[in-house]
């Protein structure tokens, strides 16, 4: 009799759900994040669907899906859920929690109890945000830019005025502490708990990406936390840190906000890049091209990405030198990013490519992210930014990188690790159908928004004048959103069906992948590895891996 897997360990509490909510096992925490995050994701997708529906109708048509005075609350809610509850915790919270200890050969993260505390903070902050929505939400946009965020009042569903914006800000502060503690935990885990033989340059690339991400989380999040709290203070007390009518400086808020919120986009994208770096060599059965290049590029993106925040503020009237410097630094981020894309494509070259569902998502990531990244250069250059600032172009660019990149990477990663996590297979046929639906719907929805933006359609507007070009493109985009929603539902459906009724597997390494996490049993036991693994070869050494595998020996 072998040790039971982590899903089947004996119950500690009679009430079933407590065995999950109070478990300090990193694998269970990862799954809890997954279920909570994707629940919120579905809610926010639905809200996005409503926003797109509203945009179907020009002002002259007289149709209104969302009343004009509620529109601000609705798009803010979409953004707050998607950003703070879904994509910022994102891949680190789900797959990082689950697979970081497995990838470095540890029993758990460094501080299992703090890991659970992170999840509780996340859950508490999320519930607080939802209650805040019932009390009136926020209509400031997710950026909470003062002085508007100091003055505005929203009406709750009960028809009473409540200080719900302070409530939402506090929720964001609490969620922030959840991410900080996760980042702290991962850094210590990577420094202290690597298995014997696993040097830094033998770590898998997903672990590298988590390492860079964690530093960003620890160094950037406290800044925004305190800044948001100061808005709360301003709403309650008659002080004016950011209110120009009382001597404050609202531009200063924007600096402090973007000092976090720009690195935050790398918090969202780097782990997805890490997942792509895992998937591509596995489904090409080939050593990754330029392993060190990708690892160092990851750190470069994090480092330079920390210093580009003011490119969000080119229209606020900074000094010309500052504009020049921030524009230049923004362009520099393109270099390590391009190195990564180049290396992924070079890995495909002469590989034994197998187009299984995870690989489809990884390839789509490269495609989508290239479009998202290159349009980012339009926004990073000073002259074009003045024209494109605050238009649908920005919205399209952001969704191409965060949804087409971050979320596609995360979904692909879950398809990749699904058998290891649940010991079951999903239906390949439905996974592929859902992939193509999502992929087609995604471009259908967001590509027209680039053209809309270039032609001057502002973002965050409730409606637009009756111009034939706008009408046509908005209609195309809205119909695309229906396809995209169908794709999301199909993906979640494929997962749920797979978890409930999928084909059971105990195969340790179904994809024939060479990294450490695939050597343990499926699903893993409570302590991950029966005995402490010894690492001998580099993570993507498919030569050594395939050679020894054919001899039937252990390869790690």
């Amino acid at each position: 009799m072998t040790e039971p897997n982590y899903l089947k360990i004996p119950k500690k509490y009679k009430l079933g759900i407590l065995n999950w909510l109070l478990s300090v096992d990193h694998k269970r925490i990862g799954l809890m994040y997954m279920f909570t995050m994707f629940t919120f994701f579905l809610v926010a997708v639905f809200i996005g669907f409503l926003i797109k529906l509203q945009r179907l109708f020009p002002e002259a048509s007289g149709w209104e899906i969302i009343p004009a005075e509620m529109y601000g609350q609705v798009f803010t809610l979409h953004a707050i859920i998607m950003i703070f509850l879904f994509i910022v915790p994102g891949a680190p919270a789900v797959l990082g929690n689950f697979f970081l200890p497995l990838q470095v050969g540890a029993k758990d993260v460094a501080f299992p109890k703090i890991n659970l505390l992170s999840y509780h903070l996340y859950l508490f902050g999320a519930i607080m945000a939802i209650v805040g929505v019932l009390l009136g939400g926020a209509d400031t946009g997710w950026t909470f830019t003062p002085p508007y965020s100091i003055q505005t009042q929203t009406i709750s569903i009960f028809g009473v005025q409540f200080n719900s914006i302070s409530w939402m800000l506090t929720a964001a502060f609490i969620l922030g502490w959840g991410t900080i503690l996760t980042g702290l935990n991962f850094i210590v885990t990577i420094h202290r708990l690597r298995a014997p033989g696993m040097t830094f340059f033998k770590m898998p690339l997903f672990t590298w990406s988590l390492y860079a991400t964690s530093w960003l989380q620890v160094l950037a999040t406290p800044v925004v936390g305190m800044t948001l709290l100061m808005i709360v203070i301003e709403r309650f007390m008659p002080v004016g840190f950011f209110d120009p009518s009382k001597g404050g400086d609202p531009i200063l808020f924007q600096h402090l906000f973007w000092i976090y919120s720009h690195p935050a986009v790398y918090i969202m994208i780097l782990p997805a890049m890490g997942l792509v770096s895992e998937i591509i060599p596995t489904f090409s059965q080939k050593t990754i091209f330029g392993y060190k290049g990708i690892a160092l590029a990851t750190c470069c993106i994090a480092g330079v990405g920390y210093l580009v925040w003011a490119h969000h503020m080119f229209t606020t009237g900074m000094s010309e030198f500052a504009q020049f410097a921030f524009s230049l630094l923004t362009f520099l981020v393109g270099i390590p990013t391009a190195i990564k894309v180049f290396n992924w494509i070079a890995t495909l070259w002469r590989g034994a490519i197998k187009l299984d569902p995870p690989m489809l998502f990884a390839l789509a990531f490269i495609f989508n992210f290239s479009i998202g990244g290159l349009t980012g250069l339009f926004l990073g250059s000073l002259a074009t930014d003045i024209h494109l600032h605050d238009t649908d172009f920005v919205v399209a660019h952001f969704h191409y990188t965060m949804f087409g990149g971050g979320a596609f990477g995360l979904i692909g990663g879950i398809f990749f690790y699904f058998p290891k996590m649940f010991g079951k297979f999903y239906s390949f046929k439905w996974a592929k159908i859902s992939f193509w639906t999502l992929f087609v719907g995604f471009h259908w929805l967001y590509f027209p928004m680039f053209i809309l933006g270039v032609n001057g359609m502002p973002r965050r507007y409730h409606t637009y004048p009756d111009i034939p070009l706008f009408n046509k493109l908005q209609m195309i985009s809205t119909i695309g959103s229906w396809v995209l929603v169908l794709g999301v539902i199909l993906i979640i459906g494929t997962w749920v069906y797979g978890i409930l009724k999928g084909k059971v597997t105990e195969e340790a390494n179904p994809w024939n992948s060479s990294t450490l996490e695939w050597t343990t049993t499926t699903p893993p036991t409570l302590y991950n590895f029966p005995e402490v693994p010894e690492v001998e070869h580099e993570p993507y050494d498919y030569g050594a891996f395939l050679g020894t595998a054919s001899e039937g020996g252990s390869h790690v």
Partner: protein
Amino acid sequence: MSDTLNPEMTQVPEMEEHRDDVGARLGFWLFLYTEIFLFGVMFILYGVYRNKYLDEFQKAAHDLNKVIGTTNTLILLFSSLTVVLAIVALKKGDKGKTRDLLIVTMMCGLTFLVIKSFEWQAKFHHGIHLQTASGIAEGHGSPLLTPGDEMLPQGEVLFYSLYYIMTGTHALHIVIGFILILWTTIKLERGSIDKDNPVVLENVGLYWHLVDVIWIFLFPLFYLVS
């Protein structure tokens, strides 16, 4: 749990606490970084607004009581010393002395808070609270402001706002530090911290030093540069 047919099942233990002092220290240093960034935001605000309203900042700083500020600085410096001595005593295995020194540290923290509260009260008494700046009090509905109160110019309001919020956040950290030391003392009495396992006390000591260091920066910025 008591599945006698399956002895392995009962062997799945509670998540065992693995002990890694270096890891615990590394984690705590990272946490201290986040605290510094948190305060850093407020220091940036101070720098920007001092630059913008230099005269008013100087005038307001002149009105703060330097004697109280200096006393509090000395008290905190002394308490940092006692924490260090407590750690040294613990490493020598002198449990009683460690406990006494920790109690002295807590007393210093309390004294600091008491003095701080007198200082704040005196400010309130003189009508200096988070007032609205001149000309815009009307309609803001400040609960602290009674009609007829003299209103301060914008720069001084910002100075006092930062003063209250920065020293307030700092005082909150003193309270947290006090609770942490109390918790450590209880752990010490129960024997879960000792000569061979001092990392908790070391980390709490680091936290106390951080609180101290932040005050070392607050003190000159608010009391001395006038």
